[in-house]
């Protein structure tokens, strides 16, 4: 186990800068998730930690040792790739024991470690099979087995569940979490799926265009997003954004109707973008009038699309409703659940 440090880490491909000075400290045994949209630089950052990409600037350290110039093999890390990267010409046992074999492990030691990893991952009956004879989930498990068999200081996961179907993804997600709880090894996990990030992480790093937007625990990011990007990225369905005017603590929509009264907690008067999560908009007898545009029952929840002061907004209701298209509802939000963002910078204002 080891802590990982990224200090002012930069990456350029030719003249194009893709990582603009990232600072993150990963604690020993922590499960850190790098999340962000495609092209934000999260995989590049992970590959720099692994040593598969050179570092253009700054410092990468593992266990207190700067590893910028070290080859991947000398960093004591293991990596699980998106497409598993299992060696097609080796069976499961050989795939899992290959790195130990190459590092000069004895046959008995390799067999023992492979059996241990296979037992943890439920692969004991598949050791003689070749990758092409395995299902997607089994291949994923072998890839993880290959990583854990060496007992490295840090595990790196590069979107390991992207190639699995939705159902299997949920199963494997739980297995990865259980694996972390069992091994307690530092894990850095890259994904573009914010649900994966929320469910797995001790802390999440939200990245956008090569920069860190916010670092925090899943609930910190959910409850107090630092800016409009994080607010829109974390949470499903995505947060509603409405232009509002704050006057004397009251949050007013474009048509002058009041959405909430923040009282003393309100920022200075002025125009803001108001962020409200769909699950935080309540229907009641009072509040701003909203015209129903669409009702989508999902069994446990009902998603309702409304027009609120001329803007489209979504509500996620636990209760079933009888409203139809064209009906008027009154919606309100509790003051603690109102997020106000600066119109220009997008930074949090309350």
């Amino acid at each position, binding site marked *: 186990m080891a802590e990982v440090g990224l200090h002012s880490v930069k990456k350029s491909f030719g003249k194009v800068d893709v990582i603009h000075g990232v600072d993150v400290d990963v604690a020993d045994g922590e499960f850190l998730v790098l999340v962000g949209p495609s092209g934000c630089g999260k995989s590049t950052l992970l590959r720099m930690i692994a040593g598969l990409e050179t570092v253009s600037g700054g410092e990468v350290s593992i266990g207190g040792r700067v590893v910028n110039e070290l080859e991947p093999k000398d960093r004591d890390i293991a990596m699980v790739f998106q497409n598993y990267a299992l060696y097609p010409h080796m069976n499961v046992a050989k795939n899992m024991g290959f*790195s130990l074999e190459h590092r000069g492990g004895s046959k008995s030691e390799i067999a023992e470690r492979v059996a241990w990893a296979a037992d943890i991952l439920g692969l004991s009956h598949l050791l003689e099979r070749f990758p092409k004879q395995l299902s997607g989930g089994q291949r994923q498990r072998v890839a993880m087995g290959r990583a854990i068999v060496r007992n490295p200081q840090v595990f790196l996961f590069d979107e390991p569940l992207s190639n699995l179907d939705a159902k299997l993804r949920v199963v494997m997600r739980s297995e990865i979490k259980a694996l972390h709880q069992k091994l307690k090894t530092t894990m850095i996990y890259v994904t573009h799926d914010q649900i994966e990030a929320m469910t797995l992480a001790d802390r999440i790093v939200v990245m956008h265009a090569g920069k860190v937007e916010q670092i925090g625990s899943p609930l910190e990011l959910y409850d107090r997003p630092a800016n409009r990007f994080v607010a829109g990225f974390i949470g499903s369905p995505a947060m509603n954004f409405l232009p509002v005017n704050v006057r004397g603590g009251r949050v007013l929509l474009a048509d002058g109707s009041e959405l909430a009264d923040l009282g003393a907690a309100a920022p200075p008067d002025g125009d803001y973008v108001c962020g409200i999560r769909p699950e935080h908009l309540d229907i009641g007898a009072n509040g701003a009038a909203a015209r129903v545009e669409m009702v989508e029952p999902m069994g446990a929840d009902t998603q309702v699309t409304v027009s609120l002061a001329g803007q489209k907004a979504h509500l996620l209701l636990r209760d079933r409703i009888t409203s139809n298209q064209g009906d008027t509802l009154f919606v309100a939000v509790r003051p603690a659940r109102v997020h106000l963002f600066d119109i220009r910078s997008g930074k949090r204002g309350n």
Partner: protein
Amino acid sequence: MRTELSTGKKTALYGLMCVLLIPFVFPTWWMVTSSVKPISDIFAFPPDIIPRAFDFSTYSKVFELQPFARQYWNSGYIAALVTLGTMTFSSMAGYAFARIRFPGANIIFMIVLLGLLIPAEVTIVPLFQMFNRLGMVNTHWPLILVPIFGAPSVFATFVMRQFFIALPVELEEAARVDGLGRFTIYRKIALPLARPALSAVAIFTFLHSWNLYLEPIVFISTPEKFTLPQALTQYTDAYGGAMWNIQLAAATLTALPVLIVFIVAQKQFVEGLAHTGLKG
């Protein structure tokens, strides 16, 4: 997606294949059957599909008139060495061109490919002078070294490069994380996976070396050192006329290993071609 052909289309397709079979199979059939016919029957018209009489003495005469077994061995070991050498060099060069980033890699690859455009006839005289100076004329060295470092190897390098380019980079990255260096990745990961391409290269190279004609007649002058294509031209009577049935018996024996190699390895051969994006 594979679509099922209708019965009519299938019949037409098989009919076409039967017609095409005639020009492809007839020459081989004629060679094999003529090798056991008396000379007078060989040029009879219309030709006999099945010989009227079988004379297998032609095969023993092949070995009586020339050191044919020795020549067979010469062709065999030269083709084996050329195949082994080409597989080694072309796979390493192909891997380097596909995977190692070095300045001018593309330009160097283009220059290497230019080797394919230069006909053997153009380079044969300077090569003769070079090997003559090295004292290697009338030895097998030119027949081994020229293909290994010449145009056949360039083509093989191209085939191998195309294969290695298509190999997922993540496999090598996983191997790097597992602790392997560049050469070990080539030897333990890339090369075992390149079997289809290597098989294609092996067949191409073996065939090329086995059929080599220009270089042997330029470099070799002693019958004991002849290779088979050169030896085939030597079955003539006192007046220089071809002894057709004996020559065709020798040709049949010459073609045999090639046919066997192709039949055994045709799956890899076709797969190898598919990997290059080329068609036969």
